């Protein structure tokens, strides 16, 4: 997945409130991420918060007709959203940071996500069993060490390779990752399979 990231380093906009009294200010980081989709299935995520524009029709504008988005809800399974004759089945379906989803596209296309870097106390609920998720923070790295996923013995991570259209599996077993700790790219989704319900929690700030 080719990504071009202006996050954190560039396009920092001080949109925050600074008061002379408290000397408290916040910094919002905005930017964009280009995600290259290959023909067939791609397991990706929306890496930036576009607020009210976190919708399929806004985020995936420009994908070719015939593109299908698969979102997954534990307990109920997939919801399918198809772009046919220029119209999405459900144009207002949301795709928020932390949510993984499949995009099946008939031809290669690059999607540009624009929005803010999520900050603060971030939490993604994880059910027992399969969860289609991603890091809420647009950062590449090892899923636990860098991105903060807490795991217990027996938990599994499945990554999807759009080139081979197949999966790779990583097991946290007997206190260590086998065969190695999985890494995620910016805007990459994955399956996290939990033996017990929990959440993917992380506190993140772009402030120094």
């Amino acid at each position, binding site marked *: 997945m080719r990504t071009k990231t202006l996050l954190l380093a560039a396009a920092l906009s001080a949109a925050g409130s600074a008061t002379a009294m408290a000397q408290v200010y916040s910094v919002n980081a905005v930017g964009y991420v280009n995600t290259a989709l290959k023909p067939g*299935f791609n397991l990706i995520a929306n890496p930036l918060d576009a607020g009210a524009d976190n919708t399929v029709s806004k985020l995936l504008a420009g994908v070719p007709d015939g593109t299908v988005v698969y979102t997954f809800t534990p307990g109920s399974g*997939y919801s399918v959203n198809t772009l046919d004759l220029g119209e999405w089945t459900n144009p207002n379906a949301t795709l928020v940071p932390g949510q993984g989803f*499949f995009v099946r596209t008939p031809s290669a296309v690059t999607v540009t996500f624009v929005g803010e870097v999520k900050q603060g106390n971030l939490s993604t609920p994880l059910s027992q069993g*399969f969860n289609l998720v991603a890091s809420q923070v647009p950062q590449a790295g090892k899923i636990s060490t860098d991105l903060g996923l807490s795991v217990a013995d027996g938990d599994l991570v499945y990554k999807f390779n759009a080139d081979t259209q197949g*999966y790779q599996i990583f*097991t946290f*077993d007997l206190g260590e990752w086998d065969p190695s700790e999985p890494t995620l790219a910016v805007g990459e989704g994955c399956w996290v*399979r939990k*033996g017990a319900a929990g959440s993917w929690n992380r506190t993140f700030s772009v402030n120094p």
Partner: protein
Amino acid sequence: MKKLIVAAAVGFLAVGALAQGQFNFGNRVTVAGIDAKVFRPDGVTPLDGANYWAQAYVGATLDSLAPVGSPVNFRTGAAAGYISSTIVTTPFSGGTQVWVEMRAWEAGADSYEAAVAGGKLFGKSDPIQLTVAEAPNTPPDMVGLKSFSLVPEPSTMALGLLGAAALMLRRRS
């Protein structure tokens, strides 16, 4: 026109080649209730490290099982007896029900068949049935897989049988 047809055929083949069902080849997937160690012939000592290999055998019927994926070594230490789970791609399309066996053998042979022929330790699990999956579905686990032990090489077995037969004959006479 011919070129277009050829191009379309090649494109179809390429897509077809990608669309192959997968499953999770692993004998320790605790969230799925799978805990099936593989042992030496003593039934106690788990196979470990590069001394042993394991490979998945898959087929539409029990008499058509063939190796898929690459052989993998066993884990070590507390994880001896288990392999690292790996996703195996089969020649079957997603949604196909297949038979699967886990076969294991002693290093020094390139394959299970070579181990059998070459007098190495070898063994296999009871076959199980599963339905291979393609994206966006997740690959199934080998639910129902049971522990098994390697058996002595044929020459030793043959010697054992010969000895037993000799004993029986001696008792009868």
